[in-house]
């Protein structure tokens, strides 16, 4: 074999284990559940292979599923907006700080490393019946009986914001950090106020980072089922909870496949739209 041909084959040898793993453990399984979603769960509990539209019919027309899907998207949207409002100024502070940016950023990255389940359950210590807030209010004499603050939609959103905020801040920071600070000075020297300079120069330039952070918050938020289980009440199920119920509790795998694919279609469409207009490079910058 010539040297050139060996040289040309080398990258493929290096790539093949990872590509084989992703093909066999992600792409083929995804195609498999598309097929599976047309199978039928029979009364005996066995799955009947074939082409039945029952699962799709149920998943797409049952108002129960539709309402929970819409509610899930609503919760994800509110979470994303709150993350943007809280995260943007914080990212701006880090990017424009004259102090030690590395330390400020590291501090922000720490929660990333702290277990998701710990961070989620930590709110029970804060808002629970015998939690910090109730204890302080009782101690101050403002209330006599502890307030019931946990296990509702607001606490689900709170938990999600706490989980996802670092993704937003990091992405906005990466974007802001790449903007030349003198651009704002230039705008100011040309007569723009500080606020105008920010609104018309810095903000538009940082939109790609904001969009990347927003996409991550939305997609990760809409795909969660742990947060509603820990911080939500019995009526606060999100769409991923339905998938979990169908697969693990009811063992109705064909229906579970259809529901998973619905979630994938909705969130995948968002990723594709994002990719079409902004490209994946921005997202990778924030993740890498």
């Amino acid at each position, binding site marked *: 074999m010539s040297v050139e041909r060996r040289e040309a084959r080398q990258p493929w040898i290096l790539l093949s284990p990872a590509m084989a793993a992703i093909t066999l453990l992600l792409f083929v399984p995804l195609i498999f559940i598309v097929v599976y979603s047309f199978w039928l769960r029979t009364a005996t509990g066995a799955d009947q292979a074939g082409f039945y539209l029952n699962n799709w019919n149920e998943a797409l027309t049952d108002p129960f599923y539709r309402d929970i899907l819409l509610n899930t998207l609503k919760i994800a949207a509110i979470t994303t907006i709150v993350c943007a409002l809280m995260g943007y100024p914080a990212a701006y502070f880090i990017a424009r700080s004259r102090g030690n940016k590395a330390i400020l950023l590291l501090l922000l990255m720490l929660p990333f490393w702290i*277990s*998701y389940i710990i961070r989620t*359950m930590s709110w029970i*210590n804060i808002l629970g019946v015998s939690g910090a807030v109730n204890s*302080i209010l009782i101690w101050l004499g403002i209330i006599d009986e502890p307030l019931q603050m946990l296990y509702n939609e607001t606490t689900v959103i709170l938990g999600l914001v706490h989980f996802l905020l670092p993704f937003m801040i990091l992405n906005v920071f990466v974007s802001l950090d790449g903007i030349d600070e003198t651009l704002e000075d230039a705008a100011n020297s040309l007569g723009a106020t500080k606020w105008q300079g920010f609104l018309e120069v810095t903000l538009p330039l940082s939109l790609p980072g904001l969009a990347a952070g927003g996409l991550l918050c939305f997609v990760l938020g809409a795909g969660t089922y742990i947060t509603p289980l820990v911080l939500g009440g019995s009526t606060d199920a999100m769409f991923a909870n339905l998938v979990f119920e169908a697969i693990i509790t009811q063992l109705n795998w064909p229906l579970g496949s259809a529901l*998973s694919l619905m979630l994938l279609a909705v969130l995948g469409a968002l990723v594709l739209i994002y990719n079409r207009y902004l490209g994946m490079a921005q997202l990778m910058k924030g993740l890498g």
Partner: protein
Amino acid sequence: MGWFFIRLWALLVYLFMFLPVAVVVLLSFNASQFDSFPMTGLSFRWFVELWQNDAILRAFQTSMILGGLTALISTTLGVLASLALVRYRVPGANLISTMLIAPILVPEVVLAVALLLFLNFLSINKSFALLLFGHVIFTLPFVVLVVQARLVSIRRDIEEAAMSLGASPVQTFFEVTLPLMLPAVLAGGLFAFTISFDDITGTLFWKPGGVETVPTQIFAMLRNSISPEINALGTVMIVLTVGLPLLGAAIARQLARKSGG
């Protein structure tokens, strides 16, 4: 004036991020047997009970083995793939990159369902192997991203110099490339370990009955009520998952300094 408010806002955001976690650590030292304020005193009793709780120790063992094996496999696959993408001009490199990061773009629940049902179809039931496959697949993209970002900075001509001085490609890899890559490899491995150690979304789908990892154990304990023991376990997790990467970063920096002369 504006800057003052931005600073204040950022401070509040930092407090929001850290206060709940600080309360977990604080309450884990609570002497009272109820998980609540007011605290009656400081004690290590919950850590002692943790140490005597077989279920938790087993969960710890499972998580460590799972995380270790995940890191090993994922880093190996990820480093090889990153080498190919950074070092060679591969046709369709963009498509391949997108493919390699696809597991992050698919919601983890969907990935979990697909893998569970497909492997079950192949008669691979819920097992440690299934858990391991799952963890490898969703940590791989992070390893690829982290390692790729660091590999770019290693200069090709150092390797060419070694080869022109008579080293074989294999020798060059082990004696020149690998030592230079070590910080990237370590960073990727630690990242994979931490993500695996932390995972609950996929793990709940894949784990066989009776097997628990630390996060699923905590989740199961939460079902009853929040006990000081959970806070103690949380504190241990925080120390581990924050301490390890910081240690890793310090080692990587040390290594980089040494090899950079």
